[in-house]
C-alpha cells in the first residue's frame, strides 16, 4: 500500500508492503498515524491519494478512481474497544457478517472458529456480560467469519490487563497461521509485537521509518 492523507495539519504518508500471510506489525508511538492507516485500509477514512491493494485486488486507487466502500472490501477489523453489537448475543455477533456472504464464499467454518477461540460456552450470552478478553475473542471470531482477505487489528489488547493480554496473544498468533490470512497488527508495545511476529513496520509522525525483519 502507498497512501497520503492530510488530517488537519497532520500528514500521513505511508508506503509499505505487508506479508501475504502471517502477522505484520505496525508499530509506533501514539499519534504516529497507526489508526489512520487501519482506517484507510478498512475504508472508514479516505486517503487523498495513493493505492491500497491486497494481493492484486485494489481497494483504493486514486489513479484509477477506485474507492471500494468498507462493506465491499472484505477486510476483517478488530478494534481496541471490541465494538460488539450490544443488542445481539455473541452467536448473532459472530454470524452477522458471515450471513452477508454467500455460503460458497464462507471458507472459514463457524465451528472451527468457535473451537479455536474457545468461545463455545459464551454463545448465548450478551456481550455486556463478557470479560475484556472474551469480548476480543468474540470480535476476532466475528471478523474471521467473513472469510476476510486480510485481518486488521487495531490495538486489540490495549484495554486489557497484563494477564488477559497473555491469555489472548496465543489466539492471535494462531489465527493468521491457521487460516493463512495476512494480519496487520497495530500496537505501541514492542514487547507485545515481539511475541507475535518478527516483521515490523515502524511508523513515526505519519511516515514509515523502517521496515524490519528482526
Amino acid at each position, binding site marked *: 500500500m502507498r497512501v497520503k492523507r492530510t488530517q488537519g495539519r497532520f500528514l500521513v504518508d505511508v508506503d509499505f508492503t505487508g506479508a501475504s500471510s502471517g502477522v505484520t506489525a505496525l508499530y509506533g508511538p501514539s499519534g504516529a498515524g497507526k489508526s489512520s492507516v487501519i482506517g484507510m485500509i478498512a475504508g472508514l477514512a479516505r486517503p487523498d491519494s495513493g493505492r491500497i491493494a491486497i494481493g492484486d485486488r485494489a481497494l483504493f486507487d486514486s489513479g484509477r478512481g477506485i474507492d471500494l466502500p468498507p462493506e465491499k472490501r*472484505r*477486510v476483517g477489523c478488530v478494534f481496541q474497544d471490541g*465494538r460488539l*453489537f*450490544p443488542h445481539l448475543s455473541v452467536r448473532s455477533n459472530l454470524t452477522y*457478517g458471515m450471513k452477508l*456472504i454467500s455460503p460458497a464464499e464462507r471458507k472459514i467454518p463457524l465451528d472451527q472458529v468457535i473451537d479455536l477461540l474457545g468461545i463455545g460456552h459464551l454463545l448465548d450470552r450478551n456481550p455486556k456480560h463478557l470479560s475484556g478478553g472474551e469480548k476480543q475473542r468474540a470480535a476476532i471470531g466475528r471478523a474471521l467469519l467473513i472469510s476476510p482477505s486480510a485481518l486488521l487489528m487495531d490495538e486489540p489488547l490495549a484495554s486489557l490487563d497484563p494477564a488477559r493480554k497473555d491469555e489472548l496473544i496465543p489466539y492471535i498468533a494462531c489465527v493468521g497461521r491457521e487460516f493463512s490470512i495476512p494480519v496487520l497488527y497495530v500496537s505501541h508495545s514492542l514487547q507485545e509485537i515481539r511475541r507475535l511476529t518478527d516483521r515490523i513496520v515502524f511508523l513515526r509522525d505519519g511516515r514509515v521509518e523502517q521496515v524490519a525483519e528482526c
Partner: protein
Amino acid sequence: MEWLRLSPVEWDAMRLSLRVAVWAVLLSLPLGIAVAWVLSRLDFPGRRLLDGCIHLPLVLPPVVTGYFLLLAFGRNGFIGSFLYAHFDFTLAFRWTGAVLASAVMAFPLMVRAIRLSLDNVDRGVEAAARTLGAGPVRVFFTVTMPLAVPGVITGAVLAFARSLGEFGATIMFVSNIPGQTQTLPLALYTLTQVPGGESGAMRLCIIAVIIAMVALVSSELLSRRHATALDG
C-alpha cells in the same frame, strides 16, 4: 355513580382524540426518524435552518401554527387548493386536519427524543458493521434502529401525549365541530362555557388523566422490556 356516565358528545370527543393522536403519531413517526437521523448524522449547509424550522411549533403560539396551517392547507391555501383540485381531498374542518395539526405540533418533541438516542448510538459499532459487509441501509436497520429503540418509544409517547392535549392549532385550523373535529380538549373547553357543563368537564378531565397515565406506564414497560432484551 350516575354522573360518571359519558354523554354521546363526550364519547365522540374521547374517541376522536384517541384516533387523532394515534394517526398523528403513526404518520409522523417514519418522517420523525428520518429527520432525526439527518440531523444527527449529516452535516450540510442549512442544517441549522432545518433544525430551527422543526422546532418552530414548539416556541410559536399554537394559534399561529394553526393559522399557518390554515393558510397553507385551507381550501384556498397554496397546498390545500392543489390537493382539492387534483385529488378532491381537503383537510380543513375535517378530523384529518386535526391529525395534521397534532402531528405538526408534536413533531419537535418526537424528533428531539429520537435524535438524542441516535446521538448516543456508538458510531464505532456502526463502522464495525460496515467492515463486516453491511451497507449503510442495512446498518441503519440492523444496528442503528435497534439501539435507538428507547428514544423512538419516548418520542412516540411524548408525541401521543402532546397530540391529546392539542388545542390552539387544532381549533384554528379545523374549528370545533362536534363529532368532526371536537377533540377532548375542545369538548372540555366547550363544556365549561355552557351552564351545567361542569360535571361533563370533570369526566373529560378524568379521562385525560387516565389516558395519559396509561400511555406513560406502557412506555415505561416497553422501555424496560427493551432493556432486559439488551441484557440477554
